[in-house]
């Protein structure tokens, strides 16, 4: 046997942690955010030669700077939270619904259609429920179709829901041709600009307040649904183990279809909030990627609707704040994307340290002695 050179133990080893007390895991996350902010600061100073503290101040300024900005922040949060809540039951069931973008868009399309064809013809108190129902049904169809195929033929839901996004987008492009206003502008323009027919009403003089209230209600209902209802329990069981679900007699196919109907319907509601409650128009960029961001919000909060308000706030704050510094410091939009990326990288990376422990060479020996 050849004489081996002096052997060392491995430089580091990774071991899974047992359970962890909640304050420790939150401390790890807080440290991660702190690190992220420091790295971002170094990055900004390096690029712009400005004081990073100033940059952070303007991020906060961009989010909370004026009452209009606060309302906008809340409104952005409400919409993102609504879509996040929509995808949550599906992901909790381990159904990889990446079609929230399309489900929301088609809900928005249905709302716009109702506003255009029935606006000013049907009384408001009937029109708004009509819009709501149309949006819910449209979103539901977009959610249920992949679910039926998954349940009956075990097709891949990720690809299916993704492709449904493109179908929705093409449908919207097609409708824009009919609804163009003014002609040849290739946009729909603000629907019912004069009469505000089919617009969600302002309450207490705030145009977004109703949106926000609706989403708060959905948050509470979703929390109760997932935690305390029989259907929510079935979703957890199917998500954790389909075999267990079959073993106790849960009809797995029915649960998949039912859950995706709920998921799609809520996306439809989000579409209505976007069209009837916010933009009052429709275009292919209506949802603007929120359908994908929502997945991150939902996972970061570990599917807990209450935590989701926090993760939504974090994402919206990053987006708005980064947008603000981009304009103020005369930087490109990409800089804000880079900053958002750095911060998310640290937050998601911190989960590794919550789950695992890293032991470095030699360290534990001293500890023992």
């Amino acid at each position, binding site marked *: 046997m050849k004489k081996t050179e002096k052997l060392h133990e491995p430089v580091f080893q990774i071991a899974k942690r047992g359970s962890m007390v909640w304050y420790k895991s939150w401390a790890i996350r807080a440290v991660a955010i702190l690190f992220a902010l420091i790295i971002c600061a170094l990055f900004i100073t390096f690029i712009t030669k400005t004081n990073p503290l100033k940059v952070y101040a303007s991020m906060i300024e961009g989010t909370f700077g004026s009452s209009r900005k606060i309302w906008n922040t809340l409104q952005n949060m409400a919409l993102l939270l609504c879509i996040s809540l929509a995808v949550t039951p599906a992901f909790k069931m381990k159904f990889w619904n990446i079609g929230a973008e399309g489900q929301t868009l088609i809900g928005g399309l249905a709302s716009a259609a109702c506003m255009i064809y029935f606006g000013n013809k049907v009384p408001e108190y009937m029109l708004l429920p009509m819009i709501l129902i149309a949006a819910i049904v449209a979103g539901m169809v977009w959610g249920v179709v992949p679910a039926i195929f998954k349940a009956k033929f075990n097709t891949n839901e990720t690809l299916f829901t993704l492709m449904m996004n493109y179908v929705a987008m093409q449908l919207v492009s097609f409708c824009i041709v009919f609804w163009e206003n003014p002609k040849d502008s290739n946009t729909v323009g603000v629907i019912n600009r004069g009469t505000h027919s089919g617009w969600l009403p302002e309450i207490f003089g705030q145009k977004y307040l109703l949106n926000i209230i609706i989403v708060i209600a959905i948050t509470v209902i979703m929390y109760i649904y997932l935690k305390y209802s029989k259907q929510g329990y079935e979703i957890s069981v199917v998500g954790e183990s389909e075999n267990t679900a079959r*073993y106790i007699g849960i009809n797995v196919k029915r649960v998949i279809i039912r859950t995706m109907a709920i998921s799609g319907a809520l996306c439809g509601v989000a579409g209505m909030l976007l069209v009837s409650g916010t933009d009052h128009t429709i275009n292919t960029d209506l949802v603007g990627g929120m359908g994908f961001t929502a997945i991150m919000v939902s996972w970061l909060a570990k599917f807990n609707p209450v935590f989701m308000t926090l993760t939504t706030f974090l994402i919206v704050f990053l987006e708005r704040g980064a947008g603000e510094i981009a304009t103020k410091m005369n930087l490109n939009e990409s800089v804000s994307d880079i900053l958002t990326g750095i911060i998310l990288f640290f937050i998601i990376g911190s989960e590794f340290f919550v789950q695992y422990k890293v032991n470095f060479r030699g360290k534990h020996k001293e500890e023992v002695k």
Partner: protein
Amino acid sequence: MTNTPAIELKNITKTFGSVVANKNVSLCVNHGEILSVLGENGSGKTTLMNMISGIYFPDEGHIFINGEEVVIRSPKDAFNNKIGMIHQHFKLVDVFSAAQNIILGLDEEKKFDVKSASAKVSEIAARYGFNIDPDKKVYEMSVSEKQTVEIIKVLYRGADILILDEPTAVLTPQETKKLFAILRKMRDDGKAIIIITHKLHEVLSLSDNVAVLRKGEYIGTVKTAETNEAELTEMMVGKKVSLNIERTEVENTCDRLVVKDLHCINREGVNVLSNVSFTARSGEILGIAGIAGSGQRELLEAIAGLQHVENGNITYIDPKTGEEENLKDKTPLQIRDMGVRLSFVPEDRLGMGLVGNMDIVDNMMLRSYRKGKTAFLQRKEPKSLADEIIERLEVVTPSANTPVRRLSGGNVQKVLVGREIASSPTVLMAAYPVRGLDINSSYTIYNLLNEQKKKGVAVIFVGEDLDVLLELCDRIMVLSGGKVSDIADARTITKEEIGLLMTKSQQEEVPENEEN
């Protein structure tokens, strides 16, 4: 060389988080010696062996090979030190032949030469008396043949120190005998052999020395010739235990579940059960024996409504009315709605019987969550059931709100069996209910099954330890390749007879006989 031990461990310690898997363990094996490492499940046997074979790295302690200290950081280091491990779960490529599997992963400079490898394999086989065809594909092999391939694989790589992790768990008594003969031959050839096991009689018949671990701690090493079963058990458990299972006589029995000519095909289109007929009676324990994968799982799942039945009948006889109900082609929910109180403890506890990430209360609810007319869950009853089971079955858990995956194997099983018994079943099916459990937990489970038997429940028990089957059951049905070899009285049949029945269909085609 005979004076220096082949492998020596000194004060090995390994912790996972706050769990101490091994604490100051010292072992020593000479060339030409067989050492048994004995201990209950969870006592740290496998962790210890994984440190020798380079899968884990010890926190503390030293390893010496032939008197020289070595550091084993990876399986490759272990292999360079001529250490070979045969794992409990085989690591073979199904579509490759024996010889191809054996040379797979060797980085020889020469080209991939299967022919000369086959010759060398045959030579090794002849030396120790293995029975192997180097060109046979792995998917055509029986479990014992696959194990042979694994052993030859490490010998081919020149291993001098062999570690076998629970090698007999999947073998019939006859195959075990054969394996032991081979191991003795290797010992006489100067190999150092370590065998991990928790079966006492195997330890006594095979090894020269026995090292005992208990809860990660090293208790001591004794010479096999100077010890006995009772002493070893005491070392293992830490207190005296009586190893007798009481078996009461069957009283007031009547037919409860009649299965006739059952035929099932699995998803791949392979016959998994053919012509299975038997009757389970109230107040008795029907044992099902067979090599793993002989159709035991499919049989129980077919009865529970989880496996599609091609042909045949499953009839349940209601204990009160005497009415016959057909269970074939019914879903689990329909079976429950018919009022059939069928409880099932499946083999895969955390993958089927329970949900690992849910707490004990929510797992109690699996059977009962549909109760009540509202759309909301009632957690009160499941909570009190959870508390009751924790107290009565002595489940070790921080609270009823701890996710079950955090519990140890024995406690997980107590939760599952406790829930299944709580619905006062008339038929109770249990698949390998003591697999992975320590001695005390195992006896708790046996007692629970006996209790159910006395209550007049028809118990169906699928087991792997033939000694236990013979002691616990009233009748034993032996399955072999999806067919019933025989149904025998457990009080008169011997272990060897069962062993022969277990491989019956693999020998030639024997005419069916289904007396008894």
